[in-house]
């Protein structure tokens, strides 16, 4: 097996300046750099599995990660996506439970790991981290509540349109400024919108015929973002 050389910067020099751990003081960032580990994950490789005991906090230095849960029907259900600067596993650490989802690398990823003990030590030492984590949890809760209301009240077409809006906001466009910089299967989009794969295929085709999007193989091109927002019942 080819060995991958990993060159992870110190937390003080990390390029991801908007991450939760960036709220730490310089002194605590140095402490963190000293104590953290890091690893390389190939595209498609699992970082941790749902049900594993939570041993630490993961911080993405480079790459994108998909978090999914196993549904009752045995199919994976996407919970959220994470990108550079985002942390993973924090909810399990805070509630002293096993990991609630499986994290899988969507690209080749470089990921740092802070042990559970060190994370708890930092929470005790630096109140800024507590506030920063509460902010993150609050955003997660708000998204979860919005999804709940959407599933209860929005039509499938609105939900699928909104799922594409979320993908655009999370991953952005490729250099052509209109192709989503992420490729998901129809089944993964169905999971995001809380519907079936068959309905998703039909609805995507309908949206494509009506103009706001275009389907090129598995990729999605957004031709008219304003129209897509209207279809999603969102107004920017």
């Amino acid at each position, binding site marked *: 097996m080819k060995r991958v050389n990993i060159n992870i910067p110190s937390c003080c020099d990390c390029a991801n300046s908007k991450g939760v751990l960036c709220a730490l003081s310089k002194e605590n960032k140095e402490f963190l750099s000293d104590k953290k580990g890091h690893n390389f994950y190939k595209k498609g490789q699992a970082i941790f599995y749902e049900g594993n005991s939570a041993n630490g906090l993961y911080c993405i230095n480079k790459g994108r990660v998909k978090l999914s849960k196993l549904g009752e029907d045995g199919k994976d*259900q996407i919970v959220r996506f994470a990108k550079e600067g985002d942390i993973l596993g924090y909810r399990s650490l805070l509630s002293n439970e096993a990991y609630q989802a499986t994290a899988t690398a969507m690209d080749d990823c470089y990921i740092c790991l802070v042990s559970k003990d060190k994370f708890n030590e930092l929470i005790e030492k630096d*109140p800024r981290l*507590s*506030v920063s984590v509460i902010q993150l949890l609050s955003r997660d809760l708000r998204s979860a509540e919005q999804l709940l209301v959407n599933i209860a*009240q929005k039509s499938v077409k609105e939900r699928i349109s909104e799922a594409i809006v979320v993908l655009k906001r999370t991953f952005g466009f490729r250099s052509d400024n209109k192709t989503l910089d992420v490729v998901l299967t129809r089944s993964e989009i169905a999971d995001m919108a809380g519907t079936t794969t068959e309905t998703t295929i039909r609805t995507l085709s309908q949206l494509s015929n009506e103009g706001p999007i275009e389907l090129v193989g598995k990729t999605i091109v957004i031709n008219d973002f304003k129209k897509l927002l209207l279809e999603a019942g969102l107004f920017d």
Partner: protein
Amino acid sequence: MQIKIKDLIFDFPFVESRGEVFEKNAFIFREGEPIEYVFYIQSGSVKVVKEGYLLWEAKANELIGVSSFFSAGGTYHFSVKTSTEAKVLGIKVSDFKEMLASDTDFAKHNMKMISERIQLTNSKSKNLMNYSSKSRLIKEMLRRMKKGSSKTIEFTYEEISEIIGVSKKFIQRLLSDFEKKDLIKRFQNKLILKDVNGLKTEGEL
């Protein structure tokens, strides 16, 4: 020993011990209003409603509005109205932030509380994905029957439409259909579940 949120809150000298009493069905705040306070429920219970949909019901010793305060925007992202008479204490958001920064136990309690709410909300979403409106309505009726140990259950269209997430008109149509099939009987604000097994079959439960 588990620390209680009540003990943590009233440890802070600037938190007044007297809350305000709200009558049943009174709004504590509405979605879109600017955030000035995080609320601690001293007694009674309140409904947390977003876009007409009941997200959850909060009881005494719970905090409300924390996630709105920390998820940017400067406004409440849901409405809160009392479901019983409730005594509620408003904590200024600036004081609340200071409380989090100065007391790790208080901060940890809030992290845990929000984490649990996320989990509950995700379970509710999953439940919604797996069941149709009709199945959810029947599930709710059966839940009430089990809770009250009686086939006669209390029922208002407004409350049920909030819980199920569909219009009152749609609930009326479903119930009228159940009545035609002799599964239930409606009178005043009550329902009699005449054929429990028939309802389960109807709801594919």
